[in-house]
């Protein structure tokens, strides 16, 4: 099972990095969110994939799962939810302001801008 998850993490990382290296802003945002998913899976896999009851006292179960990675993943998901949402809003506003979602064109425009000031 760990091997499968490891492969999935690898695929997600590859796809995320590929998307981040493209020029389109929206794809970059998608790429970052794929990367974070990959990392969350990694967190889960690193704490061993085992099945068992929820780690609550007094339930009379033999095997418990480790609660810490789940807490970490949940926290991390919340944070990434916030950041991805902010990033999306920002990209949208940037698109309105700069009239492009192409990173390359944003940069060339800024170079032009700088040249003019000189």
């Amino acid at each position, binding site marked *: 099972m760990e091997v499968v998850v490891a492969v999935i993490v690898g695929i997600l990382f590859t796809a995320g990095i590929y998307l*981040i290296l493209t020029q389109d802003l929206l794809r*970059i945002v998608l790429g970052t969110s794929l990367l974070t998913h990959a990392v969350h899976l990694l967190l889960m896999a*690193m704490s061993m994939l085992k099945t068992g009851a929820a780690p609550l006292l007094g339930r009379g179960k033999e095997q418990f799962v480790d609660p810490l990675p789940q807490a*970490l993943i949940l*926290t991390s998901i919340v944070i990434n939810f916030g*950041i991805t949402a902010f*990033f999306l809003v920002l990209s949208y*506003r*940037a698109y309105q302001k700069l009239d492009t979602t192409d990173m390359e064109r944003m940069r060339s425009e800024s170079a032009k801008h700088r040249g003019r000031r000189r």
Partner: protein
Amino acid sequence: MNNWVVAPLLIPLFTAVILIFLHNKLKLQRWISLISSMLNVCVAIYLMVQVRTTGIQTLNMSGWAPPYGIVLVADMFAVLLVLAASIVSACCLLYSFRGIDEERERHYFYTLVHFMLAGVNGSFLTGDLFNLFVCFELMLMSSYALIVLGGTKRQFRETLHYILINVLSSTLFVASVAYLYGATGTLNLAHLSMRIAESGQTGPITVVSALLLVVFSVKAGLFLFFWLPGSYGAPPAAISALFGALLTKVGMYALIRTFTLIFYHEVQVTHMLIGTMAVATIILGGFGAVSQTNVNRILGYNVIASIGFISLALAVSNHDALQGAVFYLVHDMIVKALLFLLAGILVAETGTERVNRMGGVLSHSPLLGWMFLIASLAVVGIPPLSGFPGKLLIIQGSIEDGQYILAAAGVILTLMLLYSLIKIFILGFWGKARRPREAHWKQSRKLLLSSAPLMMLIIFMGVFAEPVMPYVQRAADILTDPSIYIQAVFKE
């Protein structure tokens, strides 16, 4: 257990939330944020006194014992930085009452600053690796919003880069947390240190430490700093002062903390790497500072170069050098904030960011000129000012250790920074006035007043370095001997 440890986190958080309700009442917002930041300074001083008299203070959040719950640890190093951060933020807030336009104030400027401050203080005080990540994110989220606040084209462009870089490094942070947890089964800093000391720092753990080094280097601007000068120059002066003073230093703090407390076994690999990165940062940052003509960019490269300089001490890691690092870190927070604020006034007066278009500011605002000169001399480390003791200790430490290349890099850096700052002084303040602006001058005199406390602190820390030293020494004791920290966390 000491509940005061959480106060530097709670006060800004409460203030931030309360200010959301009052976002249309500007006067009230200003007063509340000023009072809250003053309160923060008082709490930090109180904590410092407590740490001085009764040793390291800890707080097990919600009563869970250390390796299971989240623990906040206030040792001398953390408390000194919390104090410096509170003072700097109070002065930056004072400056922003006049230096920030009402539109920004209405769009939750103060709320964001206080959230950021909570993140900064939390990062200093936490004793848990994952909680460090959470505090980092709190700080970064508010910094994203602060950079883009105002929404000019340049700000959008820089913010996009800034966010992307930081999201990537945060992703790597979580990945390294995952690996560490897989390898050791704990995330409490003290417990990590114990476990790794027991089992030895094996190859995989060293690799994870290198990953963490990359993460913190991006945040601190150590070698991986390509994003820094642009994004710190985009927002107005009060915000870049906060960034220049606080954000990179938090990364630096995390580096020092992890590499003195946890990963100190494989010095020839990790600390060698840090040393190499430090020298590279010093050279690149120094050349950057010398070659630029834009005031904000010169200061941005100055921030980078001094991060490189502090990392020298981490690479050496003996008692003297770490003492120097603590002193210099505190000094650097204060002096960088001061420089950014003064540069903000300078830019407001001359109406341009380019030094070769300025000139003659000294004739109509002499106070600004002399303050800038003193601040520059403090950065460089001229004796009666606060840069000197830290610099001396770091260079002394590296010579003691036989690291002559590092020492030489530090000395050469000093000259480069001197050149870059004096360039601003000569081109900006001397010569004929190009655009005398009488109207602005009244405004800027009030702005100068807000940076005066920082100025006095620089002089005080330099002249009265002797009474400050015991605090710094105690901070360095903990950094050189991790067992003090571990015992304090697990004492109950």
